[in-house]
């Protein structure tokens, strides 16, 4: 089953092309590492996919439905790219922020119930921040805030998890633990994952598919295919190919 389909997606910002004729289809159960140089359109592709950027040409389908008609947002968990826009003085506890991840599955008037609190505590525990549940967001370190936002994306137990550079603020130990959690979710929980990362060295260890974007779709497929491809060697050099492939 295809959970995300993109057909001939093109997007420009102030007449500057950012994405050109990008097409791909992601199957359920995939763990896709989305890589590419700075300014290659990775985050823009994610935003177009989620209806956060437009207008664009082409067609996006989520779980078989065109993006304009898609309403089942509880099936998707999302971690945006940057913490820099976060207000450090925002009065909210960790638990309150994570609870916001449950709104997509709620009917109006979208109140958080007692049973939801168990789910919230569970995901905080999974990410090793259960002790911070009543701490104000502004009092947390960057890495801890990042984990809270990851918890917010995971709490709904989404079928598709889209994470934009989720490990940027995490220390190496937290990063390993986080990737391990994602791999477990993908393999046992059948959560499909799209992860934008600059960490091409590590992604091969966890993801089963690689998507390389540089305004256009350069490559999308399995790691084995990437590692055997002469075209990829010509494009990126043997060194880059080796870095991605050596741990896979």
């Amino acid at each position, binding site marked *: 089953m295809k959970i995300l389909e993109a057909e001939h997606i093109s997007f420009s910002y102030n007449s500057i092309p950012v994405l050109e004729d990008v097409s791909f289809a992601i199957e359920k159960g995939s763990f896709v590492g989305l890589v590419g140089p700075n300014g290659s359109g990775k985050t823009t592709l994610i935003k177009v996919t*989620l*209806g*956060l950027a437009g207008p664009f040409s082409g067609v996006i389908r989520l779980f078989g439905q065109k993006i304009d008609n898609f*309403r089942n*947002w*509880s099936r*998707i968990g*999302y971690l*945006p790219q940057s913490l820099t826009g*976060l*207000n450090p*003085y*925002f*009065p*909210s*506890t960790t638990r*309150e*922020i994570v*609870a*916001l*991840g449950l*709104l*997509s599955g*709620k009917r*109006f*008037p*979208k*109140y*958080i119930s007692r049973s939801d609190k168990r789910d919230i505590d569970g995901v905080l525990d999974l990410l090793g921040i259960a002790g911070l549940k*009543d701490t*104000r967001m502004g009092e947390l370190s960057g890495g801890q805030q990042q984990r809270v936002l990851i918890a*917010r994306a995971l709490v709904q137990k989404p079928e598709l998890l889209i994470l934009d550079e989720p490990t940027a603020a995490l220390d190496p130990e937290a990063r390993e633990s986080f990737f391990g959690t994602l791999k477990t979710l993908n393999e046992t929980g059948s959560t499909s994952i799209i992860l934008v990362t600059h960490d091409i060295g590590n992604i091969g260890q966890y993801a089963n598919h690689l998507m390389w974007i540089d305004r256009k779709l350069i490559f999308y497929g399995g790691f084995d295919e990437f590692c055997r491809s002469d075209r990829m060697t010509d494009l990126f050099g043997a060194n880059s190919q080796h870095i991605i492939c050596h741990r896979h």
Partner: protein
Amino acid sequence: MGIVEYLQYGFIQRALLCGAFIAILCATLGVVLVLRRFSLIGDGLAHVTFGSVALGLFLRIYPLYISIPIVMLSSLGILKLTQRARLYGDAAIGIVSSFGIAGGVILASVAGGFNVDLFSYLFGNILAIGPEELYISIGLSMVVLAVIFLYFNEIFSMTFDEEFARVSGVGTEKLNAVLALLTAITVVLTMSVVGIMLVSALLILPAVTALQLARSFRGAMLIAASVSIVSVIGGIFISLALNFPTGATIVMMGIFLFLAAFALRTARQQLHRNHPGIY
């Protein structure tokens, strides 16, 4: 005259009741506006209110009936300008606000200059609120508060992270429009309490006071509402006792409460630094 004696008078009862509702309204909406960095919208819409009051007086129509629709349209106009004209919120507010003030000054000039009626709207006169205005104020306040209550978590989500809220299925465009309309209604209602000149103070002060102390979003709303009620009720009684202008006294109460909250927060931080294990 003691407080109990004051409470026997109908005009004071109306002022306290109206003031309490509007205080809660300003506080809850003010927290959202301050966190979304739209603090100055109260000022901008107050200037539009000035223009609409001048229009109402010029047409000899009760200003409240003219102001509410005009200010609501202006609030939506500010929203559209930020979305379509690639302007930041402060610039959009400035444009609409200038239009309101300029329009009001022209109308006042055509009508023969500024008069006592227009002055009373500038500085507010909650002690002169009549029964009709009381019922309208309470009714509209309850509508606005009901909307905030019913959409509480969606407003919270959008205030914290609008992008994530959209991906959660929150209709952010519609909710932004609703908040713009609620803000407009609040500004017009607040005009009777503190006047056009000080409307933004009643929106901002309780919110920033709460942000000194609150540890949660819900807590911020509750603290802001409490501070706002104390400012308004306390301000009314102090103004009566000392024969001060009521609107300005209410705002001064708000400023003192903010300074007290700031001092408390600073003292707590100092105590925590000196005795980390104990506090």
